[in-house]
């Protein structure tokens, strides 16, 4: 492997890993804020104890998201310096704004939330978790605006003298139609992830420790499962809008997602396709008639363009070259993303059904589902990102810059092997530690709470590292 392949692998590994924590952070910050709000409004201690229980799990996860996020920002310059020079005029702004507007808000107010239990009045303390949660949303918006620009560059002009893309309409970048559908899709998926996390843990506790805090975990389960349900519908609907826009701006990605080699009218949706080794025709497939036309264009009889046709069009536009992404990767990640997301919704429905009207489930199958549930959206998120990024290839900025042109020219393969190995080993080790800690605190159950009133400065701190 050369420095380019290694840099791509490193970016893939570190980004997928980072994005295990991000959606949990986004969704959990809101769910914990909702739990704390329920406590402040009802005075019911059950919600306070749930806030502290899930809050602790949230913080263990948040720490990982923060430290792996620094790598992401540095990596553009370290491994993709030519890309950074080419797009910095446009891409740098949302990144800088994300830091200034979102990261300061998240980090400062989470610090206040963690350490402020006995320092701040109840309602002010509640406000700190809501502000941190809003920070996570702002962060998602700006970074997705940056990513959407790579999928569908807008608001720029190519400056041949400077050899770079230059911003001429920042509002267009912020209202990029790809960003406007990607943001809701990602946020819904984050809520789905957090809902599954909350519900899976609560279900596990209800079955394995039925005598401990049953009422509290029933509340948590129903909050988590309902979140999965609503967010699942939101993810599907926003994903449907996204597919139509993708068909419009990146037809090759849609064709690859479907392994649709030639134009088809009306186009059927493939459930299972095997392509030839040369990658330009299909050998065998199982299909649902007209569904793809509907997904892509909103019309069951519309024409959907195929890979080979788009390839020849791109050769006309961009010159000779291979404009096909890795089709099996695009095809399978797209299906698996939808499949595991849908499965998470079904599991959540099952959990709601099994706990209706005060029922206490004991099923071993449900226990297995509870363990499985938190992992499903994590997989779905990963497949989604692998699909959208691999499906953009060979472009790093669609239609403007190829991935092979974006890599740092002076960075050697040895350097990238070093950093990739270091990150992979470090991340692997931290994953083991993180999961170990989560399990420890899940097993420990709901903490007892003492009354905390602000202003009593002689008592020990209510929270301490």
């Amino acid at each position: 492997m050369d420095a380019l392949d290694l840099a791509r692998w490193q970016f893939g590994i570190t980004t997928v890993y980072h994005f295990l924590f991000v959606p949990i952070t986004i969704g959990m910050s809101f769910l914990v804020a909702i739990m704390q709000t329920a406590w402040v409004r009802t005075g019911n201690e059950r919600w306070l104890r749930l806030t502290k229980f899930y809050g602790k799990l949230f913080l263990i996860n948040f720490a990982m998201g923060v430290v792996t996020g620094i790598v992401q920002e540095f990596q553009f310059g370290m491994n993709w310096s030519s890309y950074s020079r080419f797009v910095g005029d446009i891409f740098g702004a949302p990144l800088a704004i994300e830091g200034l507007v979102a990261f300061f808000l998240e980090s400062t107010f989470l610090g206040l939330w963690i350490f402020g239990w006995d320092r701040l009045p109840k309602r002010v303390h509640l406000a700190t978790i809501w502000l941190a949660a809003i920070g996570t949303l702002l962060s998602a918006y700006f970074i997705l605006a940056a990513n959407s620009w790579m999928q569908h560059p807008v608001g720029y002009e190519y400056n041949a003298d400077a050899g770079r893309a230059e911003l001429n309409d920042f509002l267009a970048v912020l209202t990029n139609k790809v960003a406007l559908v990607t943001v809701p899709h990602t946020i819904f998926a984050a809520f789905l992830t957090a809902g599954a996390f909350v519900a899976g843990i609560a279900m596990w506790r209800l079955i394995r420790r039925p005598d401990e805090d049953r009422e509290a975990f029933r509340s948590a389960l129903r909050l988590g499962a309902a979140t999965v349900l609503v967010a699942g519908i939101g993810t599907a609907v926003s994903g449907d809008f996204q597919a139509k826009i993708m068909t419009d701006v990146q037809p090759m990605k849609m064709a690859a997602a479907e392994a649709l080699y030639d134009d088809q009218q009306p186009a059927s949706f493939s459930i299972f396709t095997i392509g030839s080794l040369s990658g330009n025709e299909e050998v065998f497939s199982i299909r649902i008639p007209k569904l793809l036309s509907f997904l892509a264009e909103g019309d069951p009889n519309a024409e959907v363009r195929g890979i080979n046709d788009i390839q020849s069009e791109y050769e006309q536009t961009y010159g000779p070259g291979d404009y096909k992404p890795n089709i099996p990767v695009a095809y399978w990640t797209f299906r698996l993303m939808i499949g595991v997301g849908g499965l998470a919704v079904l599991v959540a429905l099952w959990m709601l059904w099994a706990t209706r009207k005060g029922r206490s489930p004991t099923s071993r199958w449900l226990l297995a589902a509870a363990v499985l549930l938190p992992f499903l959206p994590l997989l779905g998120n990963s497949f989604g990102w692998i699909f959208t990024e691999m499906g953009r290839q060979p472009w790093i900025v669609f239609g403007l810059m190829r991935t092979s042109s974006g890599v740092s020219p002076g960075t050697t393969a040895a350097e990238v092997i070093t950093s990739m190995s270091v990150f992979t080993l470090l991340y692997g080790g931290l994953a083991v530690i993180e999961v170990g800690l989560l399990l420890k605190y899940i097993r420990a159950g709901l903490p007892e709470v003492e009354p905390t009133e602000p202003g009593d400065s002689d008592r020990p701190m209510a929270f301490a590292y």
Partner: protein
Amino acid sequence: MELTTVWFILIAVLWVGYFVLEGFDFGVGILLPVLGRNERERRVLINTIGPVWDGNEVWLIVAGGATFAAFPEWYATLFSGFYLPLLLILVALILRGVAFEFRGKRDDPQWRAWWDKAIFWGSLVPAVLWGVAFGNIVRGVPIDSDLEFSGNVFDLLNPYALLGGLTTLTLFVTHGAVFLALKTTGDVRRRANRLASRIGLVAAVAAVGFLGWTLASYVDGADATILAIAAAVALVGGLVANRFGREGWAFLGSAIAIGLAVITLFAGLFPDVMPSSTNPAYSLTVHNASSTHYTLEIMTWVAAFCTPVVLGYQAWSYWVFRRRIGVDSIPEEPAASSASHG
């Protein structure tokens, strides 16, 4: 004033903010094995920075992002050129960040000892390497006609830059000791105060040597000289205040000293942002490294609106946690078994 100059100043301000704020929490991390003689004392030290270290680190993220947005060429050359040192810094910051969050989560001395090592090394490595990096930026590194770094990692290990690393290390440790004297009570406070005086002298010698070498060899102009002298005066003033137990003034002194030292380097650089040691014609400057006027204009508006708000709530957070803490503030039971705490 040209917008490129405005952004050069803003990036200098972000680095000042980063070094002044994270400087003391690096110092606290490095002093953990020195001043924390037992578990409760170590917890006192860590809890002085507990609520604020993450917010402090965001100054680095924003400095990086702002450099990307305002001077993409600078960001690209610097980050790809200083590849291995930045990798080390990233590993250090990762270990340090999770260490704060994870160390109290198991009631096991070996577990905590391990994370204490992570906090120590995770603070020490960046404290040294940021000084080495800035020394090299000021000194100039091999940059070719494509504005790409053309040297290797050994070019970065020169005596001047290493002295820069020693300077930031000792300054941050001094700053951390002064901060601890300001934020703790009892025995920890006394020992932090005494240590600040001793390490402060080393820092003063290192800083005077480094800034003197900077002025003699790499930077000219009366401004930089005046700034460097003011930095030294602030540091000495801080140490005198520390000697008399005036901890607030001492902290102000070390903070101003760090800030002025950073400003000295930036003032000396301008209008270069990364001089080339290969050929001055290949140097990155505020002009050839910058974004377009339009991008800088937008970023200026965003910064003008957001920065005061950020400074406001960060200051409020320091106000909320203004109280000194001592071993009495730490709950009796170990953090891990008291799952109720947070």
